[in-house]
Structures are given as C-alpha cells and as structure tokens.
C-alpha cells in the first residue's frame, strides 16, 4: 500500500463532506452493508438556547441511505471545520483506519456546534478502496460554569 493512513484519511474526509454537500442521497454509498451510524437527529428541532444537538443511531446501509435522503436539505447545508484528526490502524491485520475528528459545524442560521466524531474505514475488498463500517458523532457543550451543585451518584 503506497498511501499513508493520513493520506487515505484526509482524502476520505474530503469525499465524505463534499458528497454531503453535493449529493446527500449518495453518501450512503460510502458505508458498508452492515455499517452503524450515530448522527445528528434532524427530526428534532434545534433548540436555539442549547449548545449541543441530539443524535440518533442507525444500523445498515439501507437505513443509512434513507436517513441521508430524508434529511437531504439539512445534510447538504452542513458546513464543517475540522480542528484535529488522529489516526490509527485497526481491524484484522491492521488494514482498517480509525479516525478521531474534533471540530465545529453549523447550518445556515445556526450557531456553531462543537463535535467529536469517530469513523472506521475497512478495506472494501476492491483494490485500495475503503468502506465506512462505523461513524459516531457526539456534540460537546461548553460546560462553562464551575460545578457548584454536583449531583450525587447512587
């Protein structure tokens, strides 16, 4: 394999975010048949005063395809700033790639939302191509205030 995992990873991110922007209905082509996706729950209205967004979990390429098609408008409006990427090899014989991304995203008219995302790429079986097997996003609040009344655990 000629390319480093960084090169493959960055090229993937370029394709991934570009396709969201240009053709959401084809984003699911990047996923494996049994992929799992935890992504922005677009069915819930964004709360203007909240600095995080809820997520929803989907399993399988078909459900993922429906998700991106149904939320076509929002998905294509997504704007992303990536602040860091960490890469590791993973899976059998380390032929897969794990990417840990941090950054901010927004949609027209919204504030920025800070997020972390983990994506796992596995060799697709075709020469030098990869499928997404896992994709998890989690939004990060600011946690600005010091803890004054910490909840007790039971």
């Amino acid at each position, binding site marked *: 394999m000629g390319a480093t995992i960084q090169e493959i990873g960055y090229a993937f991110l370029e394709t991934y975010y570009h396709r969201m922007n240009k053709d959401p209905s084809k984003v699911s082509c990047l996923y494996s048949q049994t992929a799992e996706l935890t992504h922005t729950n677009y069915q819930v209205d964004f709360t203007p005063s909240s600095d995080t967004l809820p997520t929803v979990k989907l399993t399988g390429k078909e459900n993922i395809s429906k998700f991106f098609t149904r939320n076509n408008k929002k998905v294509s409006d997504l704007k992303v700033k990536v602040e860091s990427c960490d890469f590791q090899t993973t899976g059998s014989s380390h032929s897969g790639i794990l990417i840990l991304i941090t950054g901010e995203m927004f949609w027209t008219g919204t504030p920025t939302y800070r997020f972390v995302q983990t994506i796992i790429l596995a060799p697709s079986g075709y020469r030098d191509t990869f499928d997404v097997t896992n994709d998890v996003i989690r939004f990060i609040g*600011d946690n600005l205030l010091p803890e004054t009344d910490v909840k007790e655990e039971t």
Partner: protein
Amino acid sequence: LTSSNATSVEFPLYFNAAPEEFKEAGSKRHELRLKALGLDQGKNQ
C-alpha cells in the same frame, strides 16, 4: 502503514464553507457562552 505524520496538514480544515462563513455562526455560539456566564447584558437580541 506507519505511525509517522508525513502528511502535513494545516488545521483547521474547512469543508463546504469559507473560513469567514464561520464567523457569524461562531459569534452566535459566543453569545450563548456569554449568556451562560451571565455576561450578556445589553446584547439580548
């Protein structure tokens, strides 16, 4: 596949937006921050 950082990339990376486009959205987030800190006097819009 190595653990080297041969690929030099300058962060942040922008996708589907120019850096300037993040300014307005970023300032909305900043207003939420000031509100959370109780520092939003005279800025309620």
